[in-house]
């Protein structure tokens, strides 16, 4: 939690291995990721972390299936296994009948569910969700939150969500408050 400019996204980028700190260490699964080279960071992102963004960030030219399958391509998973897993994941998020649709042919909620399926593609330990409901109406937003909670319970995924919405934050088991780049309160 935190107001805009409080450093939520920066923290998320650091945990997500998208960025490295100018000083200090970041331990992720016991490994200091601040010391990793770009290729090492990419490998961590690919295997350990799944991202869900506020703007969904799907690749517009690819079908839902291809969007979900693409993280597996970078991990060298053969195409048959990729596609099988991608359609299984899309089925799980309730888009089994939309696999060949392009993002532009899907509603916001559907797009975010494709993004969730994509985040799960490489079976990551951690899912980082940056304002995942920010672009959705409240009904759709709740569905997404429910889905994330279910993932946490059933699949034992760690879910780290950034939000400035108090009501959403209440759904979490722990809340960390940030202000001006510092943790001011942890629940």
């Amino acid at each position, binding site marked *: 939690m935190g107001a805009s400019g409080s450093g939520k996204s920066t923290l998320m*980028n650091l945990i997500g291995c998208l960025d490295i700190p100018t000083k200090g260490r970041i331990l992720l699964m016991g490994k200091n990721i601040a010391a990793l080279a770009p290729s090492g960071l*990419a*490998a961590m992102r690919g295997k350990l972390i799944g*991202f869900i963004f506020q703007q969904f960030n799907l*690749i517009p030219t690819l079908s839902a299936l291809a969007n979900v399958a*693409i993280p597996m*391509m*970078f991990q060298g998973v053969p195409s048959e296994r990729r596609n099988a897993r991608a359609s299984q994941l899309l089925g799980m998020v309730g888009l089994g009948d939309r696999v060949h649709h392009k993002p532009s042919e899907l509603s916001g909620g559907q797009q975010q569910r494709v993004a969730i399926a994509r985040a799960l593609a490489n079976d990551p330990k951690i899912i980082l969700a940056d304002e995942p409901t920010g672009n959705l109406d409240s009904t759709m937003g709740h569905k997404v939150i429910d889905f994330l909670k279910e993932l946490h319970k059933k699949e034992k995924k760690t879910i780290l969500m950034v939000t400035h919405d108090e009501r959403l934050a209440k759904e979490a088991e722990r809340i960390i408050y940030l202000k001006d780049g510092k943790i001011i309160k942890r629940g």
Partner: protein
Amino acid sequence: MIADYLKFSFSNLKSRKLRSYLTMLGIFIGIAAVVSLISLGEGLRYAVSSQFGFLGADLIRVNVGSAFGPPGSSTPSNPLTTDNINQIAKLNGVRMAAGRNLRQVKMTFNGKTSFAMAVSMPDGRERKEIEELIGYSAAKGRMLKDGDRSLAVIGASLADKETFDKEIVPGASATIQGKPFTVAGILKKKGSFVIDGAILLNEDMHRELMGLPKDQYDFIGVRAANLKDVDAVKGSIEKLLRKKRNVKEGEEDFSVETAASAISQIDNVLVGVNIFVFLIAGISLVVGGIGIMNTMYTAVLERTKEIGILKAIGAGTQSIFSLFFLESGILGLLGGIIGIALGVIGTLMLAALGRSIVGTDLFQARFSPLLLLGSLAFSFLLGIIFGVAPALRAAKMHPVDALRYAK
């Protein structure tokens, strides 16, 4: 892995079809120009060497006058003689030497008149040698024999329905220079206007018809005993004739041609043409390459956010580089493929057009596999060379900056 990347890169190009085609334009114009002009040049080279009956590599031809090409329709000032033939025949490495005459004649058949080249055939053993050397054979009827009078064998295109509005078959009567002849046979088509448009007559008949003196020849056909001796024989004929005709080296009023020397003369012309073609095509290809670079830089900029997303979901520097690098390689390669296709079609059309307008077989298309494969490899190379810098830019992007990038 590579196959997956290729598929991804290809689908990206497909999603921007118009831009991809425009980018490839520069490449395929260059490649098409190279393919068509080189192929036409090759065709010309082949046509010229076959035109003059120089397909036999062991054939040496002695012409009077230094001009390259078939001896003309006028009497040379200092013609070749029977003595010359006998002297050449005695030279080391010579298997056979035969004098021949070649004149333009008027042939009339079916009320129509056409010009043709009447060429004399020697008697005896030399007849067989010449037939073998040039590859004369009768498609219909028979070849001439010693002592045949008022008989002619004509080339395939003269016998064609198109020449006299009526096909000529063996046994038909025609007049040559106003004198009646019977057609004994039709030559097998060779694809050379000299042979296909020729009238073969026995030497005595030819002389009588053209009013040529007994002891003069327009050219001498010489066959070397061994293929490897061709150059040596050519040298000794030149030496002999310089002495007999009393001319200094460099001032010869005759020429001794071999298949190799005929082709090298054409090559001299073609080298100039080829350099010009390569220069023009080179400029076009460099411009095409820069076009690819420009398109790829634009693509990198446009897809900054996509690069950020791909990086976030686990794409490393190398993967991003490969994706963009392959894309430019595909642009080059596709440009090359289209260029080759256009070049081949263009060449065939140009050759057909040339043949129908000028009416000679000099316009031919000959495609060397090396040229086609080389063009393909070169266009791919061009794509990847000009793709390196944009791909590096894409690969080096910082994921956070790229993700934050708004169009």
